[in-house]
């Protein structure tokens, strides 16, 4: 049976509807738009972390045949708004306003040429001299400069200090995570084209609307004068939620030169100017009664940030929320350093925070001589301890039980270092996964054409997650149409508003809007039919009419029917439309909403050489209703793989003598290869959640990475008896 013939609805596995476009190369990415008279930009980045440019010699570069201009602070291609609303972005992006250097990798000049070869060649010929200043890039050496961020409060309940002191069993440990770089497969690229005062940006972004608004503010344009297109995005992981300098710079150059400009950052240019996950130092202190009941929790997070934009890696929020303890304290501090901007990276705060929290939970279980699953079941929170609200749904206990059974957890040996297979030590570990659920306002439009096909539009994005496919399923269920009759259009700021695609919110926000707009479309269709004497459904009750395979019919007698096509054909416009603006209700005031999961991992560690290998993985997840099991599974596979990378490999290395990143390519910045990833068994528990949104979707993009690194670290402890509290767990730490 082909996909077309299967009755489609939410929960049925559907292959990616854009799969063919992607494998044939027909899917257009940001750097692939062929515009007439296109000019090519190449960015030049600072090779020092702090100071200023004293000389920039461009004469040789300008002599290269095909070079149009070399822009820098000396001849900026346009002006940046000094209005209040633009200042924050303008001042963090460094759009050639002056010659100051704030971090290594800052874009300080832009070569534009008729062709890429000439631009690249000319970029090598630009000679830049600097006046250097002292700098600090090392978090561990600057912890004394940790400060409380302006907009962060310490979260307290009870009296942690007193409770911790008098508790019978406790642990307190410090864990560190390194700076990481996002490394989406598709590099950052933009093509900027002007038509008079109207700007079109072909961008790779997780936010076409936010990009439009930010760029309009920076360039002092009306919002309607900017259009952002990003129909396909080759991954972003949070790094494409923000507008970075290359985007307005390309727009400014294009306006100045009166021709479109394309600017793509090469892989090695993406370490610095487009964000990072900041390094953290986290101290977790836990105390329990002898029977394992948690009494006190403290999670203190310190993260690095750039000196020009405060970013808080909110590591401690989970600890304050998901475990019951009368006494708790959660704090965040930041250390501003001379580094590129820190930003959101897949499960910001949660991925890093859950590593420390879930390792500490494992350490305390070990102290208590309790099974880590039993310990967590004992400390299941029947409400959100942060907000004191009931959960909208919470299948965490089932996640533990189902995954533990599938994994064979009962055969685990609690004694570390006791299981050996030849030269390898075998260990089993587990951890809790959790991620907050949010919903944002989102709009959608649906148009039914006179051939009975439907176009669904919303300015959201498919960042590789499968949004096109998942929204097709939502529309298919509501309209009872095959996938081939539905066309989803995304990634265009001229479409109805949608929020940024971040925080695992897309399906909960936009999926809900699409469901509503399809219902509205259907209702319009029914109303046309029942009010039209030419229709067999004339004068029937709207409530008695349903959609069945491309037609409307009576619920009670399907032979009384009329095709969508026939109904639409009779309209004067030849199409029927519906639009909705959807937004969250008061559910956030009534309920705490979160996704949950449990990871179970087997690792083997070479007893002599220290190399860790993740042998198998079983995870059970509660992300509410699963729209497309295929792409949802892929999200978990990607999240877990990301977690394996976080646990064992990823580390943006800064040489603190020179303040520069020294592994700025994916040969040396290690993300997992296929050989590092083995069996991953993904189980979805699908509790009915009537509160979170109408479809019961909680979101799944980030859940898989949360807890993942802790599960690996805990398995490494079980294998070796060694606690590695410093990620990544490279072999030198286990020798």
């Amino acid at each position, binding site marked *: 049976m082909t996909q077309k013939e299967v009755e489609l609805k939410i929960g049925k596995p559907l292959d990616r509807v854009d799969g063919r476009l992607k494998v044939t190369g027909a899917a257009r990415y940001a750097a692939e738009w062929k515009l007439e008279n296109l000019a090519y930009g190449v960015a030049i980045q600072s090779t020092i972390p702090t100071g200023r440019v004293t000389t920039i010699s461009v004469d040789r570069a300008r002599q290269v045949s095909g070079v149009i201009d070399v822009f820098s602070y000396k001849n900026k291609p346009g002006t940046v708004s000094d209005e209040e609303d633009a200042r924050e972005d303008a001042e963090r992006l460094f759009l050639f306003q002056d010659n100051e250097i704030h971090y290594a990798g800052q874009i300080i000049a832009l070569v534009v040429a008729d062709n890429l070869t000439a631009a690249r060649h000319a970029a090598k010929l630009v000679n830049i001299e600097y006046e250097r200043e002292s700098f600090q890039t090392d978090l561990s050496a600057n912890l004394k400069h940790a400060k409380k961020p302006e907009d962060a409060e310490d979260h307290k309940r009870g009296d942690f200090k007193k409770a911790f002191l008098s508790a019978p069993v406790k642990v307190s440990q410090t864990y560190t995570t390194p700076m990481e770089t996002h490394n989406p497969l598709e590099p950052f690229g933009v093509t900027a084209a002007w038509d008079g005062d109207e700007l079109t940006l072909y961008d790779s972004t997780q936010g076409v609307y936010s990009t439009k608004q930010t760029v309009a503010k920076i360039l002092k344009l009306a919002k309607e004068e900017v259009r952002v297109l990003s129909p396909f995005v080759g991954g972003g992981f949070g790094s494409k939620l923000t507008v970075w300098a290359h985007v307005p710079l390309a727009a400014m150059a294009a306006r100045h030169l009166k021709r479109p400009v394309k600017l793509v950052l090469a892989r090695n240019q993406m370490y610095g100017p487009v964000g990072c996950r900041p390094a953290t130092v986290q101290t977790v202190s836990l105390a329990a009664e002898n029977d394992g009941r948690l009494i006190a929790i403290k999670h203190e997070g310190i993260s690095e940030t750039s000196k020009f934009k405060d970013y808080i890696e909110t590591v401690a929020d989970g600890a304050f929320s998901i475990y019951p303890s009368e006494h708790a304290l959660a704090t965040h501090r930041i250390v501003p350093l001379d580094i590129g901007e820190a930003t959101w990276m897949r499960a910001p705060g949660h991925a890093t925070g859950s590593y420390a929290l879930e390792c500490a939970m494992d350490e305390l279980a070990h102290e208590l001589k309790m099974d880590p699953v039993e310990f967590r079941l004992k400390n299941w929170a029947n409400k959100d301890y942060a907000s004191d609200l009931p959960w909208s749904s919470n299948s965490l206990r089932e996640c533990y039980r189902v995954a533990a059974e599938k994994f064979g957890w009962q055969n685990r040996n609690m004694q570390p270092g006791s299981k050996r297979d030849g030269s390898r030590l075998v260990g089993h570990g587990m951890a809790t996964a959790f991620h907050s659920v949010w919903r944002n306002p989102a709009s959608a439009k649906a148009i039914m054409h006179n051939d009975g096909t439907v176009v669904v539009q919303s300015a959201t994005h498919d960042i590789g997650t499968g949004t096109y496919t998942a929204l097709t399923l939502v529309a298919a269920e509501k309209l009872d149409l095959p996938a081939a009759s539905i066309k989803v259009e995304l990634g265009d700021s001229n479409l109805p508003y949608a929020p940024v695609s971040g925080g695992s919110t897309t399906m909960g926000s936009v999926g809900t809007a699409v469901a509503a707009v399809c219902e509205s479309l259907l209702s319009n269709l029914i109303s046309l039919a029942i009010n039209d004497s030419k229709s067999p459904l004339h004068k029937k009750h709207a409530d008695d009419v349903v959609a069945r395979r491309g037609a409307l019919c009576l619920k009670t007698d399907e032979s009384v029917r009329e095709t969508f096509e026939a109904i639409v054909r009779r309209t004067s416009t030849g199409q029927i439309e519906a639009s909705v603006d959807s937004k969250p209700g008061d559910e956030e005031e009534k309920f705490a909403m979160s996704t949950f999961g449990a990871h179970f991992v087997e690792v083997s560690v070479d007893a*002599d*050489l220290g190399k860790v290998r993740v042998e198998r993985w079983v995870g059970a997840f509660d992300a509410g209703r699963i729209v497309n099991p295929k792409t949802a599974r892929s999200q978990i596979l990607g999240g877990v793989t990301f977690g394996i990378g976080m646990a064992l490999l990823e580390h943006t290395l800064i*040489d603190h003598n*020179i303040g520069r990143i*020294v592994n700025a390519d994916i040969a040396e910045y290690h993300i997992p290869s296929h*050989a590092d990833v083995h069996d991953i068994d993904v189980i979805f528990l699908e509790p009915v959640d009537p509160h979170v949104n109408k479809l019961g979707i909680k979101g799944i993009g980030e859940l898989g990475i949360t807890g993942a690194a802790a599960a690996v670290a805990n398995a490494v402890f079980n294998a070796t008896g060694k606690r590695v509290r410093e990620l990544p767990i490279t072999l030198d730490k286990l020798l």
Partner: protein
Amino acid sequence: MRPFNYERVVATPDALATLDGARFRTGSGGKLRHGGMSTAAHFIAGGTTLLDLMKLDVVQPNKLVDISRMPMTEIKETDDGVLIGALVTNSDLASNPIIKARYSILSQALLAGASQQLRNKATVGGNILQRSRCPYFRDPSMDCNKRNPGSGCPAIKGFSRMHAIVGVSDKCISAHPSDMCVALAALGARIHLQSTAGSRVVAINEFFLTPENHPEIENVMRSDEIITGVQLPASRFNPENSHYLKVRDRESFSFAIVSVAACLEIDGTSIKGARVALGGVATKPWFISESDSLIGKTVDSEIFRDFAEAALKTAQAQKHNKFKIELTKRSIVRALEKAAGVI
């Protein structure tokens, strides 16, 4: 990348003719005898190192002489072993039946390196002449004695985890990145060189140079020479007594933190022949000159450990690569145990 001229040659004399006077170049990457960012012509075969380095501006050849269509693509049995043409690809060499049967260590080492796509392009000659992965070498805006003699070595006090602990000098601690060459060092391969003046053969151990005061000089090739092939001596090592161990952070597509090529000849439990070489920890493919000391010994982990201690006695580490001393010793023991078939 800077513009360059491109010329294709198919015959050796034509190739040699392009090496006029002070202009010189070898295969992919190659040494920079005179240091600095040479603009001399380069030969290009697979280009897997050279094109990277050109994009990074580390090498700036004014001309590329494409030798990839030259006829040095054969693997021939000779009276005293096997002669491998310089343009045999890493993939073809790894899967060659003679190599797999008689020089298993070489096949194992090749397959441990790079990725299938790179192995399909990379050649034997180019692999021998591949350049350092040191991040300070690979960025022209940084100081580096190998790229810019006299400018200094930031790796020594900087990020040194992937750097060498043997054969180092106070000018350079860059590790030779090749897997293939470690196997060639273990096998005692000889490099065939040709110039318009004639040809010569250099043992691999003499071919590569440690940095000393001149890290920019990486080997003994003259500016008028080209690598034509690699001679392997008659095979003495069974596949089952040959083991290439590559220890690395990532399971695939990652450079060695340490690698060991261990080849043994064993009679019962008695060692009749041994050749062991190291990669990832040395400034050149590192044949352990004490290998002969294993001859006559019995297969025993403690003997292997003593051997490893002796092999590393002159090791010199920096802050980030101290762990490599112990790791290398353990890796030598592991590789020998595997080669001896005791684990």
